[in-house]
């Protein structure tokens, strides 16, 4: 349905080979249970250039697009959704700097990318993982020699391992005048930054989520990204990218669950025949395949449009809904097809089910997303 170019096929195959070589089921079960970030696999993924492929080459990116990044996400998550998502989400967060930062800022902050230190935290929201951007409670007072930041941010993806945060805050002049929402860079070691685990999640257990607390954090004025007052706009644009990435992660998760279900029904015998011969089993698999393919079409379409700078903003919301819902439903049906084994950790689909649910909630549940779509579809009344 979507023709891939030769180089895209090579990227896809490389990602598949990498996941086969590096991902291990027993290790994954353990890291999931211990809520551990897969640091070693992350390091080798960075070294081999799988992460940050969408960033410019001069900042150690791969000079490719979001589409290629989505292909990698799909392949890695197909093999193991928890490891794959942890890897893919670990480089998200730098988008704002890469897309809207000045050359000086990039030169100052981005060399770390080359060392494999790719961890950025996008601190955009204050209301949990809902994805509703807000800059209400984090205030940066602009003084002559810098910003003084106070406030809390919640659910920063991979916030605990990040070395640099991109913080959405409201800038006030020294006299208290509102100068609008802005994105400001804050280094993690900066005095006054407190990082707290947001708590253990039910799925995506290898991805850490952190709450940040800024108490009189002082950063130079040169840490402002782009123009003053544009912060919300920039953040929204970054979220488009992250939503499409999540759609790709969910697509891989759905495909991975379907793969496992197909393998199982072809070898499991009950009532004297393979259960893949029962019509209801076959139709369930067909339904699952339809969902996976819909997720693929939507995700690829969104990623391609993004790369062409023709993304209709509602499409990123739609792709995320379609793909994460597909992941939840396909993983659920995979559990059912595997029966008792589906409920056992060893057979993995239970982890796909939990991760799918977390992906569904990340950056806002369907409920929240639908309101955003409606706003765009209905327009002014």
């Amino acid at each position, binding site marked *: 349905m979507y023709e891939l170019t030769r180089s895209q096929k090579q990227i896809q195959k490389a990602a598949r080979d990498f996941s086969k070589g590096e991902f291990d089921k027993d290790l994954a079960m353990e890291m999931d249970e211990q809520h551990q970030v897969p640091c070693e696999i992350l390091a080798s993924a960075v070294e081999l250039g799988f992460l940050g492929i969408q960033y410019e080459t001069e900042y150690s990116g791969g000079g490719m697009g979001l589409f290629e990044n989505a292909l990698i996400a799909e392949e890695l998550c197909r093999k193991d959704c928890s490891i794959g998502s942890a890897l893919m989400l670990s480089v998200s967060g730098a988008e704002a700097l890469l897309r809207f930062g000045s050359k000086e800022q990039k030169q100052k902050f981005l060399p770390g990318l080359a060392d494999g230190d790719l961890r950025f935290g996008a601190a955009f929201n204050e209301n949990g*993982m*809902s994805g509703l951007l807000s800059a209400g409670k984090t205030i940066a007072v602009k003084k002559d020699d810098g910003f003084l930041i106070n406030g809390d941010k919640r659910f920063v993806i991979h916030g605990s391992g990040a070395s640099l945060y991109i913080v959405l805050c409201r800038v006030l002049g020294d006299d208290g005048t509102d100068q609008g929402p802005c994105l400001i860079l804050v280094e993690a070691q900066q005095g006054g930054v407190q990082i707290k685990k947001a708590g*253990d999640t039910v799925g995506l257990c290898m991805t850490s989520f952190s709450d940040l607390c800024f108490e009189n954090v002082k950063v130079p004025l040169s840490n402002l990204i782009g123009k003053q007052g544009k912060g919300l706009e920039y953040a929204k644009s970054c979220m488009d990218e992250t939503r499409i990435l999540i759609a790709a992660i969910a697509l891989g998760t759905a495909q991975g669950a379907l793969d496992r279900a197909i393998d199982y029904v072809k070898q499991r015998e009950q009532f*004297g025949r393979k259960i893949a011969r029962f019509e209801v089993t076959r139709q369930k698999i067909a339904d699952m395949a339809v969902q996976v393919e819909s997720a693929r079409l939507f995700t690829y379409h969104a990623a391609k449009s993004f790369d062409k700078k023709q993304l209709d903003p509602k499409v990123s919301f739609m792709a995320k809904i379609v793909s994460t819902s597909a992941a939840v439903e396909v993983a659920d049906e995979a*559990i059912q097809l595997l029966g*008792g084994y589906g*409920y056992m950790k060893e057979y993995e689909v239970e982890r796909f089910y*939990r991760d799918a*649910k977390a992906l569904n909630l990340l950056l806002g549940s369907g*409920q929240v997303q639908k309101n955003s779509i409606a706003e765009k579809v209905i327009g002014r009344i």
Partner: protein
Amino acid sequence: MEILKYSEDHNRFRNRLRKLLEIEVAPHIDQWDKELLIPKPVWQKMGQEGFLCMSVAPEYGGQGLDFLYSVIVIEEVARINYFSFFIHLHSDIVVPYIDSYASHELKKKYLPGCVSGDIITAVAMTEPGAGSDLASIATTAVEEGDEIVLNGSKTFISNGVNCDLVVVAARNPQEENPYSAISLYLVEAGIPGFKKGKQLAKMGMHSQDTAELFFTNCRIPAKNILGQKGGGFLMLMEKLQQERLICAVGGIWSAKSILDYTLDYFKSRIGEEKSIARSQAAQFAFAEMSTQVSLGQTFVDNLVVRHMEKEQVVTETCMAKYWTTDLAKDIAGRCIDLLGDFGAMESCPVAKVYKDIRVMPIFAGTNEIMKGIIAKSLGF
């Protein structure tokens, strides 16, 4: 009109149980989930207070109470969202096999311990190769003099680690007709040839000890048979009505409990500015879920009454089992969506239940098996 007529005695029983669960059980759930086991003294405490095997006759140490007491136990355990506490499996599924089919001698020997909680029971039907297809059980039972020799392995056995006594389904290798080959035997844990496997790691229900059981030339007295030789399949079928009804009661009460929790959570936020409790879509979601729970509750309560009147409601219990357990699963998913990021946290009760109850549409006959039985009853 209430369908289930609870008496004053029932209500007193419920209140005593609720108190006990709140004090002795609820505060320890996280700990037991970590330890992957419910300590045996908890079972004994339940037994001492009369909350196990209520239907067993006083002659064997029980209270001879009606099925409504069992319903109360399931409801109250669901109320604290503790689905790993499989006391109903013991009281209302396994022990009834002994109560209905064991000899007077075996009943004298085992039932008082079952009632007191000193003996925890399990039933071993499922095998690695025989899940939905019960007739393909491969564990063999061969008569040698006045002994039976068991060989084979069982899997997904609930209470498999804690159990002291197991009802084992095994086949006579000489009998070709699978429906008259299976017999049920009582096997004590700890005897030579009977080994418990390691606990299986599951998505949820962590303190529900689920394990594999292995029988290798395991010798038991021939008199440990339940009912007639070769009558196993029939006995299993006969008891499945109650087993599935219990699943349905569990399903509807889980759904109700999740919904109540989420609704309370929302209501506590109505006053807040920009509260999601003001969302019309959320309110409609609650309206839909409440409707489903009410409809399901009516159907299940009605089945409880008919079951107590000894009616054959096999098909209807299959309908109830499949519908309520799917409902519980769906409602857990929807409530998580409504709770947002809190719903995704391990610390949220609904998230925990989401993982626990995913097994409901699978156990006691998958919901696909239920639909097969229903279809058959429609004349197919």
